[in-house]
């Protein structure tokens, strides 16, 4: 391994690799996982929380899910402080677009714009890349509901179902097996919780270890981003059989 070439982000190794970018992805591989699933009537994002405590103010703070604009939200995996910077950048880019065009920014353009920022940190400035991967969930009038995944290199892709963070390869292959194109939003929630429960390290799933958010159309026709409350999440976990009901736990 050519360790001499990995301390500066802006140079290639002799094998043609960017080590700093790869190390950033390593960092994300140790972080809490997140799964996104695209359905006909919405996008589902589920995240594994690493910081669990009854003292956490769950109504006002989220660890994994963030709203970028009224029609776009994201799930993060990786270094949280890096994520905050990028989320703010994405929010500014979305508003700047709306300021110029008086229309919501198309989801892919937002993702592309943020990825262009990330790419800059792999080519110039001598600064390290961001240690964050994102799952973007959004809706626009051109392509309806969409799911995008992006990584520290600044690459992104549109996905029907995707996983980032710890055990993402196992999660991804499980998703590949069980995803079907005409999946409904409720089925997508079920699939996401099922896959996450299998790939998470902990023995039992409880609502304080997870975050669930959905981007969907409300009955009035507007796009809504909603984070599931812990109570509703507990009920869902029991309903889909991925957690032990309180009475059975010994």
């Amino acid at each position, binding site marked *: 391994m050519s360790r001499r070439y990995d301390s500066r982000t802006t140079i290639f190794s002799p094998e043609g690799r960017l080590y700093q970018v790869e190390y950033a992805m390593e960092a994300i591989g140790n972080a809490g996982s997140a799964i996104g699933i695209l359905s006909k009537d919405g996008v589902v994002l589920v995240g594994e929380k690493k910081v669990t405590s009854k003292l956490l103010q769950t109504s006002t703070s989220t660890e994994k899910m963030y709203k970028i604009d009224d029609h776009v939200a994201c799930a993060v995996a990786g270094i949280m402080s890096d994520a905050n910077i990028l989320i703010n950048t994405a929010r500014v880019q979305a508003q700047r677009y709306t300021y110029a*065009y*008086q229309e919501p920014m198309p989801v*892919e353009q937002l993702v592309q714009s943020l990825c262009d920022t990330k790419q800059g940190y792999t080519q110039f400035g001598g600064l390290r890349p961001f240690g964050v991967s994102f799952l973007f969930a959004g809706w626009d009038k051109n392509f309806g509901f969409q799911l995008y995944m992006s990584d520290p290199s600044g690459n992104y892709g549109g996905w029907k179902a995707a996983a980032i963070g710890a055990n993402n390869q196992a999660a991804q292959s499980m998703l590949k097996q069980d995803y079907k194109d005409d999946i409904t939003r409720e089925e997508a929630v079920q699939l996401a919780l099922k896959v996450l429960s299998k790939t998470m390290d902990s023995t039992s799933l409880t609502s304080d270890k997870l975050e669930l958010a959905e981007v969907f159309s409300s009955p009035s026709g507007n796009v809504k981003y909603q984070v599931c409350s812990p109570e509703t999440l507990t009920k869902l976990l029991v309903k889909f059989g991925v957690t032990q009901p309180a009475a059975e736990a010994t």
Partner: protein
Amino acid sequence: MECVFGLVGNGFTIVVADTSAVHSILVHKSNEDKIMKLDSHKFIAASGEPGDRVQFTEYIQKNVALYQFRNGIPLTTAAAANFMRGELATALRKNPYSVNVLLAGYDKETGPSLYYIDYIATLHKVDKGAFGYGAYFSLSMMDRHYHSGMSVDEAIDLVDKCIVEIKSRLVVAPPNFVIKIVDKDGAREYAWRESVKDAHAPPS
């Protein structure tokens, strides 16, 4: 005196502009096209300082094209109008463009539309609008005869009425006009109304 006006009909928008290029007392040419095609379904009819007019409209046209190349989808008429207004507003307190614009467009989802954007970045979505001294006459004529959902023939009839008013009542009235139309099939030239054709030198 430059005359630009336009109106929205049933599934189409029409814009009309005079075609004189004037400098002081001299008419350089009387077939100058002041209605620029922005993309397949949009026109900008612009009046004002000739240098600024071309500079600004071409700048907008190229930015609209760039958006389409980058993103694979065209801008809506409303988005293009707001973008234009933003550019005029940004330049206003530094290096203003002396250009007034009527943006005519057709969107599949929302149908035909017309936007009035003046040189100090006022933006209005309108059914009929006009710039220049000719506006005194064309706007009054349209106020009298316009109704929503006009057919192409009715609209052209109204346009001709406006042109007659301008030619007969404006002291230095432009002799020639060009009429362009945007509808679901795209943006295209409809007709010219010419009183004066460029004279050719006799063969020697």
